[in-house]
């Protein structure tokens, strides 16, 4: 969790960033911030080295020249910056010059921004606007599907309907409130966001999380992962019209969420993670939890096995929405989407935190290369199975009758650090700056934001009826993407 290194100019930052990415590091984010002294540009890079070098997220920062309203866009050289630079234009008002498409992404400017775009020309091609109010219970976003009837040659996404201004809201908040806002940045990954936020605060304060508290954090993070993966399985089964399977996975998900509420009072694990540790230990003893967990695990694994043996269902997933390994590596695809395409950068393995270093590592069961909806589901099934094992190991770390303090003091001095955690969707980053005991600036970056842009590219040969499968197999949250 390193403090920012500064580059003298944006050009130097650009050179350094491109050199790092060419050398095998992963581009992990690009943001602009307005200070009293001017505008700065910060880039996050995940170090992908071996040995001592592994396990860092570096932040590079450079000021824009005084009075500058733009800078040369990085996107032409670094495709993964495509959405980041559009957000910079939307929110900081700085123009990335030479960016291939500067349409609004998180903040619409004028009524024209709602017009139907037409990027593909051809006989009979038309645009289907789908959203922001969609059929069924979904988060609001708009898909603009350009199609001649069946194939999907082009897709646009508008996520600005849900932009809430989370990053701006952080400024001036005390630390204890900041973690509550982080939990609500991406509600279905509350624990992971709270963890990433607290890791940043703890890095600035230099405080140690008590061992037992670190185990409780892992338990909640893995419960959240199981619930999310069950949700994806449920949505995929629903897309295929498997009514019983849909109901079964919905039932399991409900049971997992009730387990979370028994552990802490919240079905989403909210209020558990606090800077310096956890708010409290679970009220139940490890034995009760172990037996509840064992039952749940048996049921989930049984139905997962049945699902992965239902050929009519798998036929819909095989070859659907493929992301090539090359593109996954180039983009630095996070979480299950990356893993399904042979690119695994799991923060629990490469940058372990809390109790993960104490537990047997959740090494991917096997390498996937297909990158289709099927591979993404396989990764989730494997991750869910591993999550049960991790929870069981973490339960062994809990104190029995003796109850040590659940948290250590965390009063960060002025400073800045980046914290991370592996959400069910992939790596979550928090770039946190503390001033006078309060949050001066906090820039969250969810895996949903980083990964959602890839949905543009996976419709090779797929048709409209594949759409719900591809969307569900991505398993992302619009709230986390639009922030």
């Amino acid at each position: 969790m390193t403090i920012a290194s500064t580059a003298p100019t944006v050009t130097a930052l650009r050179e350094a960033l491109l050199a790092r990415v060419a050398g095998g590091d992963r581009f992990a984010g690009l943001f602009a911030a307005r200070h009293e002294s001017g505008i700065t540009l910060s880039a996050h890079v995940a170090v992908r080295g071996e040995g001592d070098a592994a396990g860092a997220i570096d932040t590079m920062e450079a000021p824009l020249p005084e009075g500058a309203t733009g800078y040369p866009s990085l996107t032409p050289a670094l495709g993964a910056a495509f959405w980041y630079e559009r957000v910079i234009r939307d929110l900081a008002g700085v123009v990335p010059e030479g960016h291939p498409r500067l349409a609004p992404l998180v903040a619409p400017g004028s009524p024209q921004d709602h017009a139907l775009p037409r990027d593909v020309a051809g006989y009979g091609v038309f645009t289907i606007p789908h959203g922001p109010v969609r059929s069924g219970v979904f988060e609001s976003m708009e898909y603009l599907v350009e199609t001649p009837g069946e194939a999907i040659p082009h897709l646009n996404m508008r996520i600005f309907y849900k932009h809430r201004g989370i990053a701006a809201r952080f400024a001036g908040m005390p630390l204890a409130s900041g973690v509550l806002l982080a939990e609500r940045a991406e509600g279905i990954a509350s624990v992971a966001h709270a963890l990433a936020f607290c890791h940043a605060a703890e890095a600035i304060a230099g405080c140690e999380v008590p061992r037992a508290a670190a185990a409780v954090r892992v338990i909640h993070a893995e419960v959240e992962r199981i619930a999310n993966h069950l949700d994806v399985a449920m949505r995929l089964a629903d897309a295929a019209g498997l009514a019983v399977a849909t109901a079964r996975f919905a039932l399991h998900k409900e049971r997992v969420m009730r387990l979370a509420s028994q552990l802490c009072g919240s079905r989403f694990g909210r209020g558990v993670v606090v800077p310096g540790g956890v708010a409290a230990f679970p009220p139940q003893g490890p034995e009760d939890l172990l037996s509840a967990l064992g039952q749940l695990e048996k049921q989930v694994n049984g139905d997962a096995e049945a699902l992965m043996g239902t050929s009519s269902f798998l036929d819909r997933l095989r070859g659907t929405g493929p992301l090539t390994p090359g593109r996954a590596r180039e983009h630095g695809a996070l979480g299950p989407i990356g893993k399904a395409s042979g690119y695994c950068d799991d923060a629990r393995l490469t940058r372990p935190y809390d109790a993960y270093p104490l537990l047997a590592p959740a090494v991917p069961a096997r390498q996937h290369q297909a990158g289709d909806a099927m591979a993404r589901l396989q990764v989730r099934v494997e991750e869910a199975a591993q999550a049960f094992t991790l929870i069981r190991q973490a339960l062994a770390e809990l104190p029995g009758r003796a109850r040590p303090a659940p948290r250590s003091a965390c009063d960060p001095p002025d400073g800045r650090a980046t914290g991370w955690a592996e959400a069910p969707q992939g790596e979550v980053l928090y770039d946190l700056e503390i001033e006078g005991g309060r949050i001066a600036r906090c820039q969250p970056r969810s895996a949903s934001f980083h990964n959602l842009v890839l949905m543009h590219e996976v419709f090779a040969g797929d048709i409209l009826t594949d759409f719900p499968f591809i969307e569900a197999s991505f398993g992302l949250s619009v709230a986390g993407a639009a922030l």
Partner: protein
Amino acid sequence: MSIWALRGLRDGVVTTRWPARADDYVDTWRGPATVLPDARVGDGPDIARLCPAGAIEASGQLRVDQGRCILCGHCVAARPDLFAWSAGATGPGAAAAARQALIVPHEPETDQAVQAARAALAERTGALRRSVHVRHVDAGSDGSEEWEVQALLGPVYDVHRLGVFFTASPRHADVLLVTGAGTPGMAGPLRATWEGMPGPKVVIAAGTDAVSGGLLASRLSGADGPVPVDVWVPGSPPSPFGMLNALLIATGKLRAQARGQA
């Protein structure tokens, strides 16, 4: 496919019988914070600062606005002599037919206003009793509310057994279920959905974000504004039972057990 038919029988009936029968999970649910009956305070401003969402009003009588409570528990942890959790997804701390009914303890005129609001709602929705269709709109939620709304369609809560159905078209909808803090981007689509619904129609603001904007209240103010809210459900997010309760209140199916009548 036969394997699924058999697997579907494994756990027997998992669906709750609530509200016809009691359900343990309804009552164990942790609701928003409330003020203890004999709470006495002298140091006003410090008490109000306990709440990150600004739900505590400490000048004069100590009150909690449960429509702003995000259930963080900071007040309960710091001053257990003044604050406590309200228990149950359907009892005190659950959905209300008037915004001010969420401010506890009630101001003297609140109960009367709630009665009036309920009577007006009942008059409007008299025709909806047997079967209602719900259109859900996310107006800028954090995503968790959608999970809880989705759960209503699952085997455990199964709203179909109560004659409640979700519909894609606002033209078929009687109830508008709004989640989220009310982002500027969603104001138009939300309003258009409401306008597309035939009368009589009911609007439910589900969750603290939709009721007041929650932690984002300084920028966003919830669902009321673009659309007129009839039923207010606190919770961050509300439990599925809390939303089920609100649906039944909104459509007059749960008259006696509703808040404000006790």
